[in-house]
């Protein structure tokens, strides 16, 4: 047979059956093609051996805990959801998800109101201005608190140290659990910010999420050297600083949205890109 080309050798490696016997026989006789096949096999073999982190035996349970509150309630038959309540998709149907979605949307609206007033249509907000203001304040507070709690975890981690000189490991399980709790709401805020085009906020939340994930997945007990590496990663991202800046801006926004501030005519300031 003629020499198989690269595409045929790759397909052969992947188990394709076309001309399989002929290629196999050819590879036994032809040193040039065998060498080519071995080069392909070496690359694919090395890639095949690339490790994937083990998410842990309880990973399935964790996934369930994270998605369960967001699942629509299923009554009797699936299709019975579609027509009920005037929503077009069952995604928006369940009370809990609707509430979470609404909060997330409002959070972003609150951010947008300060940052992208020109880009967001004022009409829906103007329809119920006073209710909107109240909502906005509540949401600014919610995200501000989220950032505050995140900051606290990071600060505690930065200050963690062995209880005494003889102790070789530092227990960070408390920070780990809190980081895990914060992850979900962070993800929700980030996705909503992204959907609304607030990339500045989404980027900060994205970086925060990576740090929280690192912490949530680190061992419960770490050596001082490992703890130092975690701290260096936090420092390298400058996330603590960014969280503080955004938190401060939210505080200012919250103050400026109080009735007294409104009377004084103060307006939310455009947030700096962090």
């Amino acid at each position, binding site marked *: 047979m003629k020499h198989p080309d690269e595409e045929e050798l*790759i397909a052969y490696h992947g188990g394709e059956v076309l001309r399989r016997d002929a290629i196999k026989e050819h590879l036994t006789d032809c040193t040039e093609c065998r060498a080519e096949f*071995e080069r392909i096999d070496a690359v694919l073999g*090395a890639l095949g051996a690339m490790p994937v982190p083990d998410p842990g035996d309880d990973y399935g349970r964790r996934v369930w805990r994270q998605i369960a509150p967001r699942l629509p309630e299923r009554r009797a038959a*699936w299709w019975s959801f579609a027509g009920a309540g005037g929503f077009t998709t069952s995604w928006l149907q369940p009370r809990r998800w609707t509430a979470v979605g609404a909060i997330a949307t409002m959070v972003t609206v609150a951010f947008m109101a300060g940052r992208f007033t020109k880009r967001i249509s004022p009409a829906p907000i103007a329809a119920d201005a006073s209710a909107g203001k109240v909502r906005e304040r509540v949401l600014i507070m919610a995200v501000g608190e989220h950032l505050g709690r995140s900051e606290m975890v990071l600060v505690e981690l930065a200050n963690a140290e062995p209880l005494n000189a003889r102790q070789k490991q530092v227990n960070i399980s408390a920070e780990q659990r809190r980081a895990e709790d914060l992850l979900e709401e962070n993800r929700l805020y980030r996705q909503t910010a992204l959907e609304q085009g607030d990339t500045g906020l989404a980027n900060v939340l994205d970086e925060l999420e*990576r740090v929280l994930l690192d912490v949530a997945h680190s061992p419960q007990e770490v050596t001082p050297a490992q703890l130092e590496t975690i701290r260096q990663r936090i420092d*390298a991202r400058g996330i603590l600083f960014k969280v503080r800046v955004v938190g401060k801006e939210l505080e200012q926004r919250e103050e400026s949205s109080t009735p007294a501030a409104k009377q004084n005519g103060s307006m939310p300031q455009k947030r700096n890109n962090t």
Partner: protein
Amino acid sequence: MRRMRQSVEATGDSDAIAVERTLAGDRDAFRALVERHSRNVFRLAYRMTGNQHDAEEVVQEAFLRAYQKLGQFAARANFGTWVYRIAANYAIDRMRQRKSEDAQREPAGRPSDDGIERDVASLVPDGAPSPERLAQSEQLAVHMRRALNELTPAERTAFVMRHWGGSGIEEIAEALKSSTSAAKNTVFRSVQKLRRSLEPFVERRGQAKAMGTEL
């Protein structure tokens, strides 16, 4: 072998029952599906996205979408394969989104100079191989991640599904929303690119392997 096949069939049967019960309103039945298939979907998602953060998001989203679309799921199909495909679809979108986010972000915000995630978990010693071997494998891992990151989302998906997931061309074509010939071409292109990037680093392994490996 026979026992393994029986076990796979049993999983398939219990998946089908769990799907039916979920459709009838039993949330715990879906919980069983999530707990059974999460790790497998995570492996795919991690290989596609290259980081744990995005991989976990893909896993969650895949199961949420699976739940949402469960009414469209043909009972004859394999739930594991189906949710795997949903995850692949979402991972492509996530990778595209991530690329555009990264393009907008300033370089200082990158997790490391080569954009590669280094998991904290990987800092834990694991059976202590020699420092030279560790350094070599770490270096190779860096090259491999970099080479994978240079693939387009479609190429990476095709490669992961074909060479790690063992998916058929039709399945890959469905995930890529392309024809089978285009999917085949994408698989080929991805391997070609990876070869070009990685051959200089794995050649010695290849030669060593060739000496003692039958075809």
